């Protein structure tokens, strides 16, 4: 544990979490991007509340409008306010991203954890399953699953999560295996801790690092996947806005009204970029060699 | 006196960290003659390893690290040489053996290739000749079946074998000076003795000068003729090994000797040196050992002691010696 001096000169120990947080925020780019994400989330939640328009409001006088005083980012082909469209797209993308990661997390944790902890035949079988998932044509399956289940936000992120849990499972499994063999777990057994206790108090807390990193990389990946589906026409159901949908429509007008594709593309890129930097920052923060 | 091949003058190595300047080496000086064996002894953090890496130029100087002073090797100051000249000297005229044999060899390269690199890089032999020499050297350092082993990878060797390979790698170009940085710390005790005798054998054969870095006085005394004791980046005492072991003057040195267990020792308890090594970012005024010294005096905390010659080639940096010398002089004057 890192030590630091408090005002009166006594040595105080920092908890592990605080050390990691401190390490994370010492990386300026990562800290900035964490801020960006907070801003984005707040925007997604609050801008719709305060805006005079809803994304569905159609303004016939402002078709294809370029940015002006009334519509800060212009309008789309149907006269809907671009800023609203983007905020809702952001909201939907965040829901898809976080939802897909939640699904990935649950499935990956269960399968990877059981596989790693039990070892032996169960491990062999589950590892094979994980390997198969790696080769899965995930994109195609997302499409098929959405065809099957319908096109709501839930089914979309559920489908994405259902097809992309393999990296998480593999990660959890290798973490559990490493931790399982470590000395302090052996010491725990020697002290008489039950298996459940070992799992919950010894193994899981030490796997959290890579899991958090995997989650932070999974969110942009899920956003990518959904936008890909929108491109094909099987993404979020219109008139609900999504970046993929906006970009596809905007494509046609790239010469005449570039703002229609530029703004969605930019906001998409900024969000993904922010998550990427956060993911990298987290990875560096958890790296034991860099601490202290 | 044999010819001096290395003269270190007031070597200082400072590292700039976020919360202060770490004075890893804070002004050490010594000379080394041809064929001489010198041991640098000290705890972790005493600066002994940093001092030799500084001399070799292996510290990345720049915003975060500064090396000052002089290190004159065969008449040239190593700190004033260009990179190209330094490349020529390293591995060729000055070689190093490092502490951890497990991580010191490139795991994806055959050891034979790694051993002959100094010869190839310094253009001292063709590949065929170098290979022959490498195999012969493997045999000399005690590796069985050297021809086959030449083509093996590091993970196919045990720790002790790897260290032998390191030694072969270090001496293949016939260096004038071999620096061994804690070569036995990561090895079992029995293997330790073998490695040390191997180094000694090589030294005798080729009259190489040796600097042996260690925290273990027993290891130091095994074959070195001179010793320097470092603490907090400074020299505390230096002298010939026999004189030093028989009669250490500096309280730190005495503490080190007292805390080394010896077979047949009549004492029941080992005496440990109380306290902790100092925080190198905030080295106190005066003698760095003062906070832990049992014989500490007021002046020790105020001023750093000068070096006092207490015998032929035996110097100590302690106010007690100055005191004694002064008292001795007073006594003599008053007599």
């Amino acid at each position: 544990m890192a030590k630091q001096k408090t005002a009166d000169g006594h040595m105080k120990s920092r908890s592990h979490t605080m050390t990691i947080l401190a390490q994370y925020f010492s990386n300026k780019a990562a800290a900035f991007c964490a801020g960006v994400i907070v801003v984005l989330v707040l925007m997604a939640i609050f801008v719709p509340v305060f805006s005079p328009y809803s994304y569905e409001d159609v303004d016939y006088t402002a078709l294809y409008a370029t940015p002006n005083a009334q519509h800060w980012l212009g309008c789309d082909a149907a006269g809907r306010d671009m800023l609203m469209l983007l905020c809702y797209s952001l909201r939907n993308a965040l829901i898809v991203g976080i939802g897909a990661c939640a699904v990935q997390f649950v499935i990956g944790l269960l399968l990877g954890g059981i596989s790693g902890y039990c070892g032996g035949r169960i491990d062999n079988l589950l590892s094979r399953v994980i390997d198969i998932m790696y080769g899965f044509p995930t994109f195609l399956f997302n499409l098929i699953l959405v065809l099957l289940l319908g096109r709501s936000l839930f089914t979309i992120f559920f489908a994405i999560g259902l097809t992309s849990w393999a990296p998480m499972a593999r990660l959890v499994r290798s973490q559990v295996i490493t931790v399982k063999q470590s000395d302090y777990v052996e010491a725990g057994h020697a002290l008489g801790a039950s298996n459940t206790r070992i799992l919950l108090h010894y193994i899981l807390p030490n796997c959290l690092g890579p899991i958090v990193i995997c989650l932070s990389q999974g969110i942009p990946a899920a956003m990518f996947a959904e936008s890909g589906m929108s491109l094909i026409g099987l993404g979020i159901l219109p008139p609900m806005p999504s970046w993929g949908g906006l970009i596809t429509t905007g494509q046609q007008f790239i010469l005449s009204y570039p703002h229609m594709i530029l703004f969605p593309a930019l906001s998409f890129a900024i969000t993904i970029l922010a998550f990427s930097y956060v993911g990298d920052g987290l990875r560096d923060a958890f790296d034991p060699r860099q601490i202290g | 006196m044999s010819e001096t091949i290395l003269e270190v003058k007031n070597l200082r190595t400072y590292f700039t960290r976020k919360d202060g300047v770490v004075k890893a080496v804070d002004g050490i000086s010594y000379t080394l003659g041809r064929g001489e064996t010198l041991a640098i002894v000290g705890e972790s953090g005493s600066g002994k390893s940093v001092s030799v890496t500084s001399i070799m130029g292996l510290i990345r100087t720049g915003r975060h690290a500064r090396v000052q002073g002089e290190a004159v090797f065969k008449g040239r100051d190593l700190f004033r040489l260009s990179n190209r000249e330094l490349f020529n000297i390293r591995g060729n005229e000055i070689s190093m053996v490092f502490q951890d044999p497990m991580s010191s060899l490139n795991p994806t390269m055959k050891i034979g290739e790694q051993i002959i690199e100094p010869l190839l890089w310094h253009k001292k032999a063709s590949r065929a000749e170098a290979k022959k020499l490498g195999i012969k050297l493997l045999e000399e350092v005690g590796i069985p079946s050297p021809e086959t082993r030449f083509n093996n990878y590091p993970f196919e060797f045990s720790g002790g074998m790897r260290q032998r390979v390191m030694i072969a790698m270090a001496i293949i170009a016939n260096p004038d000076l071999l620096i061994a940085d804690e070569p036995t710390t990561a090895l079992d005790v029995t293997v330790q003795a073998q490695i040390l005798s191997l180094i000694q054998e090589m030294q005798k054969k080729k009259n190489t000068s040796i600097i042996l870095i260690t925290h273990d006085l027993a290891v130091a005394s095994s074959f070195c003729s001179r010793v320097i004791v470092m603490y907090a980046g400074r020299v505390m005492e230096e002298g010939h090994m026999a004189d030093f072991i028989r009669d250490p003057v500096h309280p730190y040195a005495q503490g080190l000797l007292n805390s080394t267990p010896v077979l047949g020792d009549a004492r029941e308890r080992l005496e440990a040196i109380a306290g902790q090594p100092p925080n190198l970012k905030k080295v106190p005024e005066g003698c760095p050992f003062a906070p832990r010294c049992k014989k500490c005096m007021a002046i020790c905390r105020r001023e750093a002691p000068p070096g006092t010659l207490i015998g032929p080639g035996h110097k100590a940096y302690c106010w007690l010696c100055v005191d004694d010398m002064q008292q001795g002089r007073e006594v003599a004057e008053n007599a």
Partner: protein
Amino acid sequence: MFKYFLKRLGYMFLAVLVISAITFGLLQLAPGNYLETQRLLEKTMTDATVSEQMKEAWEKFYDLDKPAIYRYGKFLVNAVQGKFGPSYKYPTQNIEDIIARTLPISARLALMAIAVALVVGIPLGIIAAIRQNRILDRIVMFVSMLGSSIPAYVLAVLLSWALGVALHLLPVIGWGAPVNYVLPVVALALGPIGTVTKYTRSTLVETLNQEYIKVARAKGGSFFQVTFKHALRNSLIPLITVVGPMAASLTVGTVFVENMFAIPGLGQYYASAAINRDYPMVMATTVIFALLVMGMNLLVDFIHAFLDPRVKKSLTQKGG
């Protein structure tokens, strides 16, 4: 070691089998029907409407009157021989002919993208690692982040607009001449370039911090000798493992890029098949892509084991 890879090859075919079974099962459950999507069953008669008789004949032609097990079995038997039968949308063509015609094009695009990614990404990663934490490093990393954050199709659009329309440097439509390859390959490669750069940089930085690099410098190695002979070799080996997943993501990328540049590759059929409920096509493309991706991963693992003596040794010691 070969025994180990033969075993993995066997597992791979087993996996593809499982995938095909799952795909088939899901497709049976999926609502919607090809004829419906193509509006061939409208109640109001138009020229394209299919009569009841024709519908039955169509179903007979595609064995849709037979039970699912029969159809799956027939699929497998044919698949092993490399035949996939006619697609719904293109009843006059056999799917395997379509694949034979289009797969090489898509494969070429993907391979070129990988090659570009390696040729550009590795040097960039080296530069970033050597100048770690200085300006050049940050610039290179930012650019590579951009590349992997903006989706390929957006970049494709922007690129084709900038280079094709605005500057008239490269043709936007058209296929056949080498110059037509430039835009699609660049658009495909931008994401992989980011990945390769990032990965090269991090492995090289890690390698340069290893003890044996210090030892190599102590032996008198010059900057180039140490970096290229010792460090790079060790950090490039793990890079191979990144190529596998990259191939998988490229299969998705080709769909969009082919769409955008009107390239007659397999990717176009891949996605539209699902929407159109062109089941034979879906089955065929799933199997092909799964084989390709898994095969690529296997190849990559093989090369990795071959290059890294530690892995090679552990595999041969296991008894193959």
